[in-house]
């Protein structure tokens, strides 16, 4: 039973990071109907920048973290301006391929600058393990979990109360109507991409602290795709619930299915779940299907 809870807790922590990165996907999808395949690279860049600031320039972690967030937000806005803005009203496949191209381009830059070796963060959180009723938790996990919860709370309030948040929801709801009410759709797009990249950077720094930083981190961009599809592409609660479900399922499958079915099950299980869910609910658990007119 302890084993089960151990796996469960690992799943919850990883799931919370998934939820965070998935939030970035959903924001972009809601605002601009595009799926950002380069999100994994945003995560990667965020963690490398923070690592570089901490190890090479010896900046205290908290300041480095904030600088990373600023950098990534600017990067997100730049990407929106240069790559996505010209593709407004382009077919879905063009937008998908543009973000795929972007991910390849960013990955190329990252590999050219930082190479392929795994680098680890200097210990920032204490490495003393905490024990609850026989379940061992590392403080990094605990910190990640609370940071993620905090951020999810902040974003919920941001979307409910702040003027910008309301504007973003309005644009997501009906672009035309929002435009006619005097909302600048362009700036909403830019800020959406900025926030998505910023959120990805948080995910990147946390993941970097847990597993070390290397090029393979970008695969989280692919792992999070099932999360958003499971929750429904246009639903923020869906992203959060989906993140936890996928995280827990992955962790449990590593514990129980891997010995039977062989390696790699961790990467596959989310996609199997997605196929099943899509068969039953084509728009995910919380997603809204539109009405189609001919």
């Amino acid at each position, binding site marked *: 039973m302890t084993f089960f809870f151990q796996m469960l807790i690992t799943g919850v922590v990883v799931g919370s990071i998934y939820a965070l990165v998935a939030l970035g996907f959903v924001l972009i*999808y809601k605002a601009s109907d595009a*799926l950002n395949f380069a999100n994994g690279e945003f995560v990667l860049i965020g963690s490398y920048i923070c690592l570089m600031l901490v190890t090479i320039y010896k900046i205290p972690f908290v300041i480095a973290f904030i600088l990373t967030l600023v950098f990534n937000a600017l990067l997100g806005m730049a990407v929106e301006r240069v*790559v996505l803005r*010209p*593709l407004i009203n*382009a077919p*879905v*496949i*063009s937008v*998908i*391929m*543009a973000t*795929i*191209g*972007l*991910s*390849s*381009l*960013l*990955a*190329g*830059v990252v*590999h*050219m600058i930082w190479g392929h070796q795994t680098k680890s963060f200097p210990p920032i959180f204490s490495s003393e393990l905490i024990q609850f009723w026989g379940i061992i938790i590392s403080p990094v996990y605990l910190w990640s979990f609370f940071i993620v919860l905090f951020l999810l709370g902040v974003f919920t309030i941001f979307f409910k109360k702040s003027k910008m948040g309301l504007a973003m929801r309005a644009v997501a709801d009906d672009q035309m109507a929002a435009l006619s009410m005097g909302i600048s759709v362009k700036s909403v797009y830019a800020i959406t991409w900025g926030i998505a990249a910023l959120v990805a950077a948080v995910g990147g720094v946390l993941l970097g602290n847990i597993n070390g930083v290397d090029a393979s981190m970008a695969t989280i961009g*692919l792992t999070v*795709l*099932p999360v958003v*599809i499971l929750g429904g*592409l246009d639903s923020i609660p869906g992203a959060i619930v989906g993140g936890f479900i996928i995280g827990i399922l992955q962790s449990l499958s590593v514990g129980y299915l891997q010995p039977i*079915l*062989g*390696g*790699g*099950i961790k*990467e*596959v299980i989310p*996609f*199997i779940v*997605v*196929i099943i869910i*899509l*068969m039953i609910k*084509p*728009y*995910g658990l919380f997603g809204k299907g539109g009405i*189609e007119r*001919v």
Partner: protein
Amino acid sequence: MKNPFVMESGNYKTSYTKDMALYRNPRVKRRMLIIVILLFLIPLFASNYVIGLATLCAIAVIGAIGLNILTGFTGQISVGVGAFLAVGGYTSAIFTTTYGLSFWISLPLAGLITAIIGGLFGIPSLRLKGLYLAIATLAAQVIILWVIGNWESVTGGGSGMVLERPSIGGFSFYDQNSYYYLCLVVAVLTTIYALNLFRTRTGRAFLAVRDRDVAAQIMGINLFSYKVMSFAISSFIVGIAGALLAHYTMIVTVELYSIQVSIQYLAMILVGGLGSVFGAILGAVFITLLPVGLGYMVEYLTMFIPDAYSLLSSFREFVFGLVLILFLVFEPGGLVNIWNNIKNYFKLWPFSTKE
């Protein structure tokens, strides 16, 4: 003989049959014939390395046409081509190596089995659209590769399988030239098939589904069967390409068919031109030769930057992404559009101006 490279000055069509014809006029037919003959003459003057590249291009052309039928013509985005190539390659490997069947039987079998699996993963396409479908095909990619990688008794697991070049009677396709001819013949046949497909009811139905599937359904097109059919036809061709590729490289492992391969094929049809057979050909050749060209460029750069080679793979990634974005932003019609613009310029020359 009339000069086949003289351009016609306009369209003069008096019947639907003429409008639907495979070749607009006899000159085009002769022109195509000359180009195909030239392609067959490549081995006479090219080195083995060039012929190898040409073979890879021919195989990529087959796969890209297959994918274009699904994504370009029917509008169903598929991010799972890599896995379908793998299914084709592995099927052929299993039939020829484990069961000792002849290549000539295992090649169509590879196509058929890929078609069945493709059709199976096409079933969700009835309810899924756009991004959701793209992710479903991505799921297909991940699941299929995982099954192949873990089904050790049949596929050899992580170590992969070894294949042989085909032979007929006493003649073996072992050397570069003969295998090039084989691939070229299949590529030409695929091209002709795809061009003809879109002159039939089935092909027209695919186009209708792409343009507006609800409207197509109202006009009496059975969405389910046509979508699944599109998946099956496309997968069949991709499976053939996979088998040819496997017998060319003579080894199949899971790593050869990663998601990167799927992305490359999507890039081929996008850079070439969605919904155009000729575009798929141009795109396939372009994307296949791009890394080679970059290799030469980096080799040249080593004169100035000694360790440029260590950056080669990252540089390729970078340029690949850059090319994709530049095409999408500046020329969404792809290479085929550029080609048509050039052609139109000369068609009206000297009256064509910049504006």
